[in-house]
């Protein structure tokens, strides 16, 4: 893993360091380039490497859950699927309770898709879909809009009570309502920025330290290499954790819309 990242770093360094010396281009891995150019009436709808990896992620999750789940006594692959199911099922029961049951497919799909994107992003030479803010923001915004619509459907205009804190003098209300509304609008931003920043920072760090391994050579390269091994492990943890956090926060927002208590 680490050494392969290292060779990739060497390539980019060789490409860009024409004038001698070490040039690191850690952002090269995030470039989006079209694989199949598609133009829909002046709109660029090309099938890019990002699209490709999203398709791969979706297929990987589908394959895991479709082909691994036949036997009564589960094999390894089936266990993974069942563990994931139980994990999200328990999470939703803890956070929302029985009312959240109808939304299980949505949360589960969201979690598995993000997890697959993050994990496939750890494969050398692959593309990390979730390291682009437009993708995480699109997901966060759809969650946000969906939850808001749901809140209004469940509680009608009473959903606006979410923005009016109780036990406050009337004079303070205009100010506090503005603050509450801003706090509510923060949700999609923080939800998307968290995932995107974690993935991008981690992958950039990996690339930078991989370039150090090459730059320091056989003599001094061992220390960053050891760091890389440890850091790769941490990155796997982060990849899982961020998918989990995204799912948890979606559950919390869903809970606010369904149960409305604060």
């Amino acid at each position: 893993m680490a050494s392969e990242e290292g060779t990739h770093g060497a390539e980019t360094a060789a490409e860009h360091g024409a004038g001698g010396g070490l040039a690191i281009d850690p952002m090269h891995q995030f470039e989006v380039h079209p694989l199949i150019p598609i133009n829909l009436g002046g709109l660029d709808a090309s099938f890019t490497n990002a699209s490709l990896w999203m398709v791969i992620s979706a297929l990987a999750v589908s394959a895991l859950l479709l082909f691994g789940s036949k036997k009564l006594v589960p094999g390894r692959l089936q266990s993974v699927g069942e563990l994931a199911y139980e994990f999200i099922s328990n999470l939703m029961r803890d956070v929302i309770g029985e009312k959240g049951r109808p939304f299980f497919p949505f949360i589960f799909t969201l979690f598995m898709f993000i997890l697959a994107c993050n994990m496939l992003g750890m494969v050398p030479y692959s593309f990390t879909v979730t390291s682009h803010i437009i993708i995480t923001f699109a997901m966060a915004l759809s969650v946000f809009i969906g939850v808001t619509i749901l809140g209004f459907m469940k509680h009608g205009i009473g959903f606006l009570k979410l923005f009016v804190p109780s036990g406050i003098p009337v004079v303070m209300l205009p100010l506090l309502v503005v603050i509450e509304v801003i706090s509510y609008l923060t949700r999609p931003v923080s939800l998307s920025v968290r995932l995107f920043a974690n993935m991008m920072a981690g992958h950039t760090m990996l690339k930078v330290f991989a370039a150090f391994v090459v730059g320091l050579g056989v003599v001094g390269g061992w220390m960053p290499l050891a760091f890389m091994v440890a850091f790769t492990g941490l990155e796997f943890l982060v990849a899982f954790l961020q998918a989990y956090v995204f799912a948890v926060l979606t559950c919390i927002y869903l809970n606010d819309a369904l149960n409305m208590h604060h």
Partner: protein
Amino acid sequence: MADDRDKSSSDRLGELDKRLKRARKADLRGDQQTNGRGTALGLGFRIAVDLVSAVAVGVGLGYFLDWLLGTSPWFLLILMPCGMAAGILNVMRLAKAEEARRLAEQDKDPDEGP
């Protein structure tokens, strides 16, 4: 295990039930522990991002309203401090929720330290 054979089947079933319950409880506790440790990193990051993004939303909203209504710089001036306040509010809510969760966990099994 030799005396198991002497008991009636309903007794043995009851015992099995008890053992299953105990195992399930232990399983649940283990889950929660690993969760607590894993999310410490996530929680820290959550606080940081919540704090900053609220300010960003306040500034963005103020700038947008000013651009829309041509009232520069008033909405920006009003909404930026509101954004900062919202950031603090987010963090306080998060901390309160986390505290409640931790307390509930301690109540559930007092023998387990944090």
